[in-house]
């Protein structure tokens, strides 16, 4: 089926990103907007827009019925869900099928298979992928026994979680009981599902992921990305390919990702996330993200493909137009997420009016953004304002270009993370590459002169109250999107 008209069920930079490809392919776009986004840059650039509900996400961007109703009334052929929001929601994919609308993403069965971490783990084991030692627990006694078997430190995660929510590190058996109670309460409150699982805490880890693309029969990979620079499980900088990996390890990681997607007979674009244990020089499967990711541009930069176009082609029922041998990765790419956050004050959110938004332009520089001078950043959604992506013939060239591009970009009116990225781009350890997931915490301590919160557990309990669900000042809540990253721990 040829897709001629697509509803984009998302906002911000990814909505514009999808539009760009649609325009190139001659596909008409209808943008679903909340009341807060009716006059957004994305709404102005779409061929049409349709309001699907009030500003809070649950009333609009997370409302399956409203999205499907809008798609039907706008008579679109397909829905592109972007990332976050409903992008991995099996109910939306199901409702699309029932309404005769193409869901640009994997099958309902595949969404279900990877949407729940326990299912995903089981499938990964069946596909022969290595897993971090650990498992699910239903009671405190069972949890204590398993923790003993795995050995401390241990990470407790919510089965239904993501984005760091419901995740805690426990260093000794003394703290175990209170930690697991807190995790279960938080998981229950956040996801309506109190189940947790335990796993070995990897002290020195890197977050490495593989971009995969399948047509339901054949799967290829588009190389690795390294997303180890994170704060509380939110990615800040991503690069492709993952630097400083031996050829053997890189091949093993890529092959494992393809094996997993092949096992699922995966259809669409996806990312298999791995945790590289730097001390043991081995890797473990973390999870699979069944959607396009925030950091997809770094892969596009090195492999020269338009990943949104790939998604659309597969959704149209076409077989992959290329073989693994035809994929050539060239040079090195780095992406910085510029967020509306005051990084010098604990990354305090900073919604408000942007007085000036000026970005570097030139060879090897790409800026994906929905922010222009004069726009308002609403308080309802996540804080991503822009992604600055650079490409160079090798990593040092990319780092130099990044530093330049950041220096020639300015955002005024709201606090933002440009300054943080400038400092990181000039950092020696970052320049060498291959930093661990704990890098940023240490880096911030040197920049702000403050003692870092040493563990996720400490971060989540920094306000001493009995209310884990919404408390912590501020704590990170899941948006269920690209940044969700269990496993890789500071």
């Amino acid at each position: 089926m040829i897709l001629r008209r697509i509803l984009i069920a998302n906002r911000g930079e990814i909505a514009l990103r999808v539009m760009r490809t649609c325009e190139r392919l001659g596909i008409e776009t209808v943008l679903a907007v909340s009341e807060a986004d009716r006059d957004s840059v994305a709404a102005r650039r779409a061929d049409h827009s349709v309001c699907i509900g009030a500003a809070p996400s649950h009333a609009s961007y997370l409302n399956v019925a409203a999205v499907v109703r809008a798609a039907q009334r706008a008579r679109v052929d397909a829905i592109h869900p972007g990332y976050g929001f409903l992008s991995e929601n099996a109910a939306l994919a199901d409702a699309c099928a029932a309404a005769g609308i193409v869901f640009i993403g994997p099958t309902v069965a595949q969404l279900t298979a990877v949407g729940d971490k326990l299912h995903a783990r089981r499938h990964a084991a069946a596909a022969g992928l290595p897993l971090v030692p650990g498992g699910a627990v239903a009671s405190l006694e069972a949890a204590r026994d398993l923790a003993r078997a795995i050995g401390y430190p241990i990470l407790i995660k919510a089965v239904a979680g993501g984005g760091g929510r419901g995740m805690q590190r426990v260093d000794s058996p003394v703290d175990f009981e209170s930690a697991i109670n807190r995790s279960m309460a938080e998981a229950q409150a956040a996801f309506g599902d109190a189940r947790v699982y335990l796993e070995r805490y990897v002290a020195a880890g890197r977050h490495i992921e593989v971009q995969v693309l399948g047509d339901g029969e054949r799967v290829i990979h588009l190389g690795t990305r390294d997303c180890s620079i994170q704060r509380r499980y939110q990615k800040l900088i991503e690069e492709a390919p993952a630097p400083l990996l031996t050829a053997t390890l890189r091949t093993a990681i890529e092959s494992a990702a393809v094996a997993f997607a092949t096992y699922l007979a995966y259809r669409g674009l996806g990312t298999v996330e791995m945790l590289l244990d730097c001390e043991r020089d081995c890797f473990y499967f973390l999870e699979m993200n069944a959607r396009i990711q925030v950091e997809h541009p770094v892969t596009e930069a090195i492999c020269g493909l338009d990943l949104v176009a790939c998604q659309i082609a597969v959704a149209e029922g076409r077989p992959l137009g290329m073989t693994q041998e035809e994929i050539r990765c060239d040079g090195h790419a780095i992406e910085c997420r510029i967020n509306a956050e005051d990084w010098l004050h604990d990354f305090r959110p900073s919604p408000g009016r942007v007085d000036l938004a000026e970005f570097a332009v030139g060879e090897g520089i790409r800026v994906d953004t929905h922010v222009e001078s004069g726009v308002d950043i609403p308080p309802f959604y996540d804080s991503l304002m822009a992604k600055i992506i650079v490409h160079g013939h090798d990593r040092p060239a990319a780092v130099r270009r990044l530093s330049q591009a950041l220096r020639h970009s300015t955002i005024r009116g709201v606090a933002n993370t440009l300054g943080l990225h400038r400092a990181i781009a000039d950092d020696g350890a970052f320049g060498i590459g291959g930093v661990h997931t704990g890098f940023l915490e240490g880096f911030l301590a040197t920049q702000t002169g403050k003692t870092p919160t040493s563990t996720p557990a400490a971060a989540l309990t920094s306000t001493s109250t009995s209310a884990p669900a919404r408390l912590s000042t501020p704590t990170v809540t899941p948006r269920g999107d690209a940044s969700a990253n269990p496993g890789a721990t500071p």
Partner: protein
Amino acid sequence: MELYDEDVRAILQLLDASSFDELCVDTDRFSLTLRRADGAWTRETRTSSKPRELIDAASPSVGSAPSVGTAAADGSLTSVSGAARPEGNPADARLVAVLTPLPGTFYRSPKPGSPPFVEVGTPVARDTVVAIVETMKLMNSVYAGVAGRVVEICYPDASLVAQRAVLLRIEPDLA
């Protein structure tokens, strides 16, 4: 409708060879300003086209938008416990207003279904958490900021609150 990076680079190639340091392109759909500083170019874009909303497809809830001010960040943003003297009504002169630290969604309880942090009449200490305000997916605790007793809760649970909105009023203890 969009101007692609490739288009901008093509324009830049022309400009590079020229002596111009600034170029403005204004159309009905966008305005693009390219500026040269320290040998590098920057771009500023404004989209001027209007949204073309499909009226027919609008959802029933449209029109009930509680609007929220998103005033630019000011000094108040750094103060989480936003106790401040209210203005106006002299009868309330003793009361201390608790301001929202950020614009966002005001929650009275730690999680859906659990009891509120405080009710009218609840005694509070300076560091008592009295509410949560969700901004950009982050939960920010709001502290009383002063010891006393809650005399007013200004919004229902889950309301949208603007920058510097008064969330609660507290009658401070006599020192």
